[in-house]
Structures are given as C-alpha cells and as structure tokens.
C-alpha cells in the first residue's frame, strides 16, 4: 500500500527550510534599503521613510548617501570596500571558471587512468591524491605562498587559479574515477579491437558517456573555488584581483561599514550566487546521485 504524504507536514518542513534559507536573504534586502538610523531605531517603523537605494548607488557610482552629507555627520561608517563588491564578483567568476576548466582538463584524464588502467604506483598515488585534502589549509598557506612568490604569482589571478585547481583536483579525480570505473569494460575492449588508442578511448567513449557527470563535477569545482577564502586572501594583492569571499570578509569585519552598507554588499554578492545555484544545483545533485546508482 502506498503511503500518502501529509501535506501539512510537507508545507511545514518546506516553510521551515524556506525561512532558514530565504530569511537571511530577505533580511539583507530590507537592511540594504532602510538607512541605519531607521533600522536601529526601535521607535520608528521600518518603512517610515520609505525605501531608498542610496547605498546601492554608492556601491556602483561612489556618490555618498545623503545621510553622510548632513551637519554633524562624519564618514566613519562608509568605506569603499563596499565598492569592490561588483568587481570582486567578476574576479571570483573568472577565477572559479578557470579553476573549473583546469580541473576538468587535468582531473578527467587522471580519473580515467586511475579507473581503467593498472600502472606502477597506482594505489599509492591515488591514496596520496585522495588523502591530500585532509591536510589543514592553514598548514599549506606558508609553503604555497612562498612557492608562488618565488615564481612571481603572488598578487595575480593565475596564482589563485592554480591553488584552487589543486584544492579541487582530488575531489574531481575521486568523483570522476567512480563514474569511469562503472562503465562496462566491454566498451573499451571493443574500442581496443577497433584499434583505438587509450587517448581515443578516453575522448571518444568515456568522455561522451560521462559528460553529465563531468559537468556536475566541474560545477562542484567552480563552487569550491568561488567560496574559498584563505588562499584568496593571502594571494590576492589588491582590488583588481580580489575575489568576493575576501571582500565580504572585509565588509563584515570593518568598523567603517554601516549596517545598511554591509547588507547592500551582502545582497549584491548573494544575488548572482543564488541565481547560479538555482540554475545549476539541480543538475549537480541529479548527475552526482544519478551517476552513483547507474552501473
């Protein structure tokens, strides 16, 4: 007998999840369009002065909100760190996209080799690769910084891209090797009989069959890079290369950022991320889970 869903419970849980995930977004939106003097005044109604987009205008144009031009105001709570948000979103996108591409270019062939071929040192190298993420990030900061400094890559996007690629690579190899391992061996035996090289077997058979999984794994690498903070912070030199994770940390920790300006920064940073997640997350989950049960 098929059990029926309780619609009330379903709505209750869905509502809780929505509140938990969407609540902060709504709060940051409200916080960004209501000035601090209203937001923090328990005697005033939230929308007594209506809504204004002055902090958004400041972020995109640099024009000061009117509150800072009033008599007795000082500019202690407005900082151009907030103005770095739009640029940092672009920087993060560039870095994450490049890290994703590099991950797939390097990770997919490696995963295929690990999955389908025997070679000396295979087990130990696979273990090394898979266990390497267990090393705490903070322990790697100094040697990686010094290595990149030696080759002049500190303060460049390329440096961050390389590190993010290296950080995501073990996951890419692990996930894709599972997919490649589950492919029927007969496919590759037939390919060999037809005089396919290993590379041709990879590009003409394995990749097309694993394309959805490769895409999902790539998106996973994209997201790992997009949200990474530690290396982005020490390796990005200035606003020209700084990813959004670093800018948001600066906004959240500085005293010269008003509450409404912080919320504006958060909302501007959140929207593209939300759109991205809404568009692709379903595919990531479907493909990763689908791949794990298909055989």
């Amino acid at each position, binding site marked *: 007998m098929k059990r029926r869903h309780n619609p009330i419970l379903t709505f209750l849980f869905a509502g809780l999840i929505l509140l938990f995930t969407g609540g902060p977004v709504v709060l940051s939106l409200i916080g960004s369009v209501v000035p*601090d003097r209203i937001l923090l*005044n328990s005697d005033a109604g939230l929308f007594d002065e209506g809504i204004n987009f002055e902090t958004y205008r400041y972020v995109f144009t640099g024009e000061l909100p009117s509150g800072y031009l009033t008599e007795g*105001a000082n*500019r202690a709570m407005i900082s151009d760190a907030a103005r770095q948000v739009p640029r940092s979103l672009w920087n993060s996108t560039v870095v994450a996209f490049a890290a994703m591409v590099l991950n797939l270019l390097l990770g997919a062939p490696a995963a295929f080799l690990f999955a389908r071929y025997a070679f000396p040192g295979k087990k130990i190298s696979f273990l090394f690769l898979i266990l390497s993420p267990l090393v705490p990030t903070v322990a790697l900061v100094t040697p990686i910084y010094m290595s990149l400094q030696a080759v002049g890559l500190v303060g460049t996007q390329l440096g961050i891209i390389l590190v993010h690629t290296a950080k995501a690579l073990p996951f890419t190899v692990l996930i894709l090797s599972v997919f490649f391992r589950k492919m029927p061996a007969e496919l590759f035996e037939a390919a060999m009989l037809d005089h396919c090289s290993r590379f041709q077997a990879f590009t003409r058979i394995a990749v097309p069959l694993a394309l959805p999984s490769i895409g999902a794994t790539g998106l996973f690498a994209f997201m790992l890079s997009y949200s990474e903070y530690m290396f982005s*912070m020490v390796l990005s030199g200035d606003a020209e290369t700084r990813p959004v994770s670093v800018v948001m940390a600066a906004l959240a*920790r500085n*005293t010269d950022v008003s509450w*409404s300006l912080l919320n504006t920064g958060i909302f501007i940073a959140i929207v593209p991320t939300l759109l991205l997640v809404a568009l692709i997350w379903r595919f990531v989950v479907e493909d990763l889970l689908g791949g794990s049960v298909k055989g």
Partner: protein
Amino acid sequence: MNITRRLFAGMAVAGAAMLGGPAWAEDLTLEFVVWNYSLDTIQDNVRQFEAANPGIKVKVTDYTWPDYQDSLILRFRGNTQTDVIYGGQDWLPAWAAAGFVAPLEDIAPKGTVDDLKKDIAGFALSDMTYKGKLYGLPYYADTISFVYNKKILGDAGIAVPQTWEEVTAAAEKLKAGGMQRPIVYEYNQELPNFFDAFVAQSYGRGAELFDAEQKAVFNDPQNGAFQQLEWLADAFKKELVQPETHESKIIPAMNTGKHAFTIVYNYVLAALNNKGDQPRAGEFALAPMPGQAHATLGFSKFYAVTAKTAADPKRAEAAWKFINFMAGKPYTVAKRWAGEKGLGFGQLPLFDDPAVIEPWAKWIDVPTLSKQVATAKAGTWTEWSAVWSAYFRPLLAKAMVGEASVADTMKDGAERWNTLREQFVKQ
C-alpha cells in the same frame, strides 16, 4: 650588408631606449601594506603624496584586520617587496627582534626624528619604541574608553559611574527597569583588543599587571586585574552583559537603545555619535575609566619601514618622505583622520588645533578626553606578548563566562607569561 645590419641594430636599440625612457627617470613604486580600514581615505592620501612627490608612486595592498599580521609575516618571509607598513604596538618587539622593521633614525635626516618625538604622547612614544629606538610615527593613537548613553542614564536618574561597583549598581538598576543587558562587551578571544580592553579596565583600578622586571603579578588576588576579572565574571553571571563579537556590532547594538554601557576605542564613539546614520547619535559620551585611578590603556598604530627598504638608500629616502608626509608636520594627514573618521592622534599639538577640536566636539567631550590621554598608560609589550596573548585570551574568555575560575585563570596566565619571559630573556 654588415654595416646595414649594424646600423639597423643600433637604431633599434636607440629607439627602444627612447621608447622605454632612461632608467633613472623611472618612478619608484613603494609597496604600502595596510589593514583595510577606510581604504578610500588611504588612497586619497596616497594620491596627494604622489602629486607632491613626483617620481614616487605608492601601491597600496590591504588585508583584513584579523588576518593582517599573519599576512604581513608571510610577506616578510616570502621576501615580497614591502616598504612601508602599518605597525602595531603589540607586534613591534617581535618584528624588531626578528629584523623585519628598521628604526626611523636609520632613514630620516639627522635630528628630524628627535624633533617629531617632542610632539608625541608618552604612551604612543612608548608603543613605537623598542630598545631605545623609534620605529614608527603615529597613524593613529587612541585610548580605550568607558562609554555610556547619557539619555538612558538621565532618564533613569543614574549618575555616571565612577567605580566598577557603581557600574554594577547602575546596570542592575537598569535591568530592574526592564533593560535586559545594560552592558555591551566586545567578547572575542581571537582579537588582541579583547585583552587590551581588559588591561584598560584594570588600569582604571590602578593595576599594574607586570613588575619592573616584567614578571607577571596579576595573579595576586589584591591586584586590580584580578579584581577586574572577578568583576567581569560577576557581571556575566548576573546577565548584565551582552557579548558581541566585534566592535562593528557594538555600534548598531548601542544604537538600539537597549544597552547603556560599553568599553571601546574612541573612534567607535565617533561612529556611535555619527548623525549621518545612527538613530541615537549624540546620546553617547565618554566617561573616565571607572576605578580609583581612572587611568586607561593608550596605544598607537604607526607607519613603519621594513628593514629591507631601510637597507636600500633610494627606497629608504622615498619611504621616509612617505612616512613623514603621512605622520609628520604639519600633521595634515593625522588631522584628516581625526576630523573625518574620528581616529585619535598621537601628535599632542592637535589638541590645540581648531581644525581637529571643532569636529571632535560634535561627538566627544574634548576636555574629558584630554584628561584621559594625559593619564593613559602604555601596555607592556615584549617579544613574547603576542604569543602569550593568544594563549591567555581564551582563558580570559572562559573565566568571564564562568567556565573557569578567576584564580586558576590568572595563575595559569601568569605562569605562562613568566615561562615565556625566561625563555626569551635567555635568548
């Protein structure tokens, strides 16, 4: 054919040289590393310096405050070009001992530093001095203050507390009147400020945490620091304290009108009283630090030059020009920070400068501040201070919220300090 080739090659070289310009005419670019407070003002100051000093460019690199020191050490150890930096009083002994920074006397024209020293507040001078040599000029210098809400106290008929016991009494009265947590406190063991604020409160009681030989004495129950930790633990236990993780969160918290007291840097008071965006601007005031002595902790953040730069005459000359522009006479940049951002200053003549005092009078009682600066004391900063502080702050945090006893915390902290002292003194 050969002549033609030579001519062609010669012309190419000459052309390239002309296009590239002569090497001696190239701009020198100083690498200026800061924490990212008010980058727009920093950049604007830099632009003004560059306009006044043709041939010298300044590239600003910034890090978030909590990551600043670690990032800077990475730069030092990674040999990343770094010329002028923001320094801190708590970091100076370790940096100087490690040879990361150089005394200003090494790069400044003779007599200049001595002349500037005369204008600097005693605690600030102490903070920037290591083994008798001056390593910086003030970016800002400030005191940690006891801040209260005038309106709340006035409405409740409470006088400004003069001792910590009076603070407790006032907070209890406010709590009885419906205010849940009258005191907002920056409670974050990760931040060095967490310890500094504790020292400031202890100075209010007249405490000395270390003796003349830099041995810890705060584990004595009669010591003011010991008593202050007891006071804090009691205030937390009575639920009089609202902990906040960062001073930036104290500003909105105090502006909700749900809290009456806090202990913060003066620039936070400037932000609290900012009519531009704070609903209760004007309600906040500074009072002498409670306690019999009313003293507090003064500190200085400063511009310093790296040892690597000091060793390069050309860069050293440019770095001195830059530091002197940012912190030297006629103190234009210090005035700007003070006027626009409410940052304190280590240059005492600014207390008599209308360009500073007039804007400051809008958010702080200048005579009270002036008295506070006069009685402010520097912290005890040693090569092991930062290591010890990182060890002690979590203990302090636990004791405040009752997870450890005050006696055990102070004993543990003092033993650790004395052990480190012995190790470093031996070296």
